[in-house]
């Protein structure tokens, strides 16, 4: 009764949760392209896409991916054997337990008419599968907490999943152990199944079970009388053996029973069988009910991600289906951090300290962002910097074990965030190259806005530049600013500049304009002099700084060995850092 009630409650929560999840897959919007598509359009496009795929040759691709990537998890194997072994043990063991043990009345019984959970091979297999899961979990704990793989971060969800699985497995084994040793269980079994109403026969059976099968009885102790044991054997063969293999086959439970030793009697009297049964059942049901809301949802979402990415083609697939896939992909992520281990810029996290540089963490932040787009400016800026600080090398996408098309996700989110109007100073660096290459896929009106915004935001803080009519009073030297320009090797060489203008003459950017002064603000030699005079505003405020190609012509041709390009690099560093700081405080 309690069992049925709990089962149906958790099943109901699970089903409602799944319905809610599926609804979010079709309704949540990530990236610019998803904005104008309604939920019903997405459902319709998905139905159409699925039907046309199933009735085409692509069905073979799906089949292949299902076997190799979903069932055999080839993609994890390619990355790391230990991880593959870990996941296969957990997922294989758990699925087999689910099918054979948890759903025994539905599945196992219909395939094996002779099924008894206490009979081999089922008795042995149940323990074997449990050990698989436990070994897998041990590897997971080892990787996360002992090996301390760099850039593999663990969050509360990771702890939860390891814990819930561990509780289910360990409570199951402890339960099996107390049941094997339990005298009450023995008495109940005798009453229910044995036809031995003769006291002598029952005692003989009890002797045998104590000697051979781990039972702990208050009445029977060593040494055993050989004759009684033989008689017990006979009774056992007659009444029990048909439906009960030796509990020794349940090797984890049997070992546990042996470990309880004499305490088994106390445990039995305290009702530990009942207690552990509740723990086991409740943890299973909790795991089931919470599944749609935990990262365990990946058991569904990752399959969809692998299968859809195998047959979808970004050029041809409908935007509606891409939007839906990207929403599902967020749930497909298992936070395994393969992407962060392979990420080309991951190490920059150590210096910059923004977690969102690491793809695996970025994805976690995006989940929160997509669920609630008003997550606050600070968090939003952190995600934006993380998404922008990316060389688009595609390694994360290539290695993702669940096949998430991360590169498209980043591109689409990057556009959405920068178009919201938050200033991103990293836009003024070669990190923008990829965006430039793809400018034809971005709305041309929206393309320039964030770039202009970033340049303006920096220039706005340079008053001297903005009021050219003001006369600069002498001595204006901002000594602190001047001393800061000393990060890289000998960049303080600006003081050697005597304004011969060689740098400006050879600069291809200056050369490109008819009226360079008007276009660029200050020219390279003027910037050098501004630094020498400590005129911060002049150095930061000129457009020239952001239009510098870093081609090193100026530096190469300076007769005074001023490190012109290196100084320009440094000024950019300083302006960007200052802008980030000022902005995050506001």
């Amino acid at each position: 009764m309690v069992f049925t009630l709990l089962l149906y409650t958790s099943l109901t929560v699970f089903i409602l949760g799944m319905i809610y999840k599926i609804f979010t897959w079709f309704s949540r919007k990530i990236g610019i392209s998803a904005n104008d598509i309604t939920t019903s359009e997405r459902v319709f496009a998905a139905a159409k896409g699925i039907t046309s795929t199933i009735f085409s040759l692509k069905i073979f691709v799906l089949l292949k991916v299902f076997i190799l990537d979903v069932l055999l998890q080839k993609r994890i194997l390619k990355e790391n054997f230990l991880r593959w072994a870990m996941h296969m043990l957990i997922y294989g063991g758990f699925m087999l337990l689910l099918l054979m043990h948890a759903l025994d009345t539905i599945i196992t019984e219909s395939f094996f008419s002779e099924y008894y959970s206490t009979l081999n091979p089922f008795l042995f297999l149940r323990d074997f599968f449990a050990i698989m899961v436990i070994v897998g979990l041990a590897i997971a704990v080892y990787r996360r907490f002992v090996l301390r793989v760099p850039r593999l971060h663990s969050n509360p969800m990771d702890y939860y999943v390891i814990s819930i699985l561990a509780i289910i497995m360990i409570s199951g084994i402890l339960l099996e152990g107390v049941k094997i040793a339990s005298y009450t269980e023995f008495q109940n079994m005798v009453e229910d199944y044995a036809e031995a109403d003769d006291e002598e026969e029952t005692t003989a059976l009890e002797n045998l079970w104590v000697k051979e099968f781990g039972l702990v009885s208050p009445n029977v102790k060593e040494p055993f009388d050989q004759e009684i044991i033989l008689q017990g054997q006979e009774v056992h063969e007659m009444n029990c053996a048909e439906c009960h293999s030796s509990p020794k086959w349940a090797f984890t439970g049997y070992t546990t029973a042996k470990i309880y030793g004499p305490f088994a009697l106390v445990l039995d009297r305290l009702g530990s069988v009942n207690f552990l049964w509740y723990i086991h059942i409740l943890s299973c049901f909790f795991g089931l009910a919470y599944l749609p809301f935990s990262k365990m949802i990946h058991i569904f979402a990752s399959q969809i991600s692998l299968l859809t990415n195998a047959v979808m083609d970004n050029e041809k697939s409908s935007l509606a289906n891409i939007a839906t896939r990207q929403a599902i992909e967020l749930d497909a992520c298992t936070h395994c951090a393969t992407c962060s281990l392979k990420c080309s810029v991951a190490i920059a996290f150590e210096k910059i300290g923004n977690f969102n540089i690491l793809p695996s963490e970025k994805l976690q932040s995006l989940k929160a962002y997509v669920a609630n787009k008003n997550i606050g400016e600070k968090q939003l800026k952190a995600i934006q910097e993380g998404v922008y600080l990316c060389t688009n090398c595609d390694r994360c996408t290539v290695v993702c074990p669940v096949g998430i098309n991360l590169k498209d996700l980043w591109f689409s989110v990057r556009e959405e965030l920068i178009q919201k109007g938050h200033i991103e100073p990293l836009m003024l660096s070669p990190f923008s190259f990829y965006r430039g290459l793809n400018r034809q896929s971005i709305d041309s009106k929206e393309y320039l806005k964030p770039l202009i915004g970033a340049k303006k935001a920096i220039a706005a803080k340079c008053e001297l530049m903005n009021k050219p009519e003001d006369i600069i009073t002498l001595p204006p030297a901002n000594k602190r600013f001047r001393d800061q320009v000393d990060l890289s090797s000998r960049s303080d060489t600006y003081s050697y500049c005597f304004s011969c203008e060689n740098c400006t003459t050879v600069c291809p950017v200056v050369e490109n304009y008819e009226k360079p002064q008007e276009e660029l603000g200050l020219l390279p030699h003027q910037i050098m002099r501004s630094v020498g005079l400590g005129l911060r505003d002049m150095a930061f405020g000129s457009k020239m700084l952001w239009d510098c190609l870093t081609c090193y012509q100026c530096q190469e041709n300076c007769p005074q060995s001023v490190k012109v390009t290196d100084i320009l690099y440094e000024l950019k560093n300083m302006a960007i850092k200052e802008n980030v700081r000022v902005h995050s405080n506001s």
Partner: protein
Amino acid sequence: MKFALFIGCNIPARLQQYELSARAVLGNLNIDIIDIPEFNCCGYPMRNADFKAFVLLSARNLALAEKQGLNVMTLCQCCFGSLKKADHLLKGDASLQNEVNTILAKEGLMYMGNSEVTHFLSVLYNDIGLDSIKDMITNAFKDLNIATHYGCHALRPSDIMQFDNPATPVLFDQLVEITGAKSVDWALKLECCGAPLLGVNDELSMDLAEKKLADGKQAGADFFCTACSWCQLQFDTVQKMIIELRGMDGHLPSILFPQLLGLGMGIDQEALGIKMNDIDISGIESFLS
């Protein structure tokens, strides 16, 4: 001869033909290529924003190569420039080295400055030598005019790069000429391709590329030849975009040096990724003798 091959970020994602053709050519020349999958970004795009993060990115690569006792060969000149620059800075600044090594120590790495950084072209020119390569040319080009594009970061700053004479370099031209092609003289040969500003100031970036295209064509070149991923993307992918956006007439396709050399060595087109360029270069076959 053994090198750790540094392919960077652009090549595996957007310019696989560079890696393909370079491997094919290096294989023919019996150069041992070691792959270090842990390599990360050279740090180049970080230089505008955070100097120390740039040095850290570079230093990690150098430390990885050093751990295996290998020198690093880059294909891209911006990777080349950045790794060399970082190496130079680290060698001259003990406290910076310390700071970087404290972070690298977390994954058992350490930068000590024992690994040298070189570029694909330098390896061909200095380590293998023109004569040995010439012996491998089976299908020399005839009547083919090439505009060699050196790439800024290989040449400058010359005190650090030590690649060739920064004002009158010959290394790349001589390499091109052993294939039988003629390296034409063109005025803007040593100027920037414009790629660093793509995405920041597209008009300026495209202006610079367009000027170089016009100049190369005027000098009678049939093809550009590059040995840098940024320059090649600018002259191939971005040139295609310029044609579409600005309606520029005529074009000057760009071939990667290992593609050119590979064809001269008689390597199969497919192995050189000839068909993978955005602007078709298959016409170059007609110049083979």
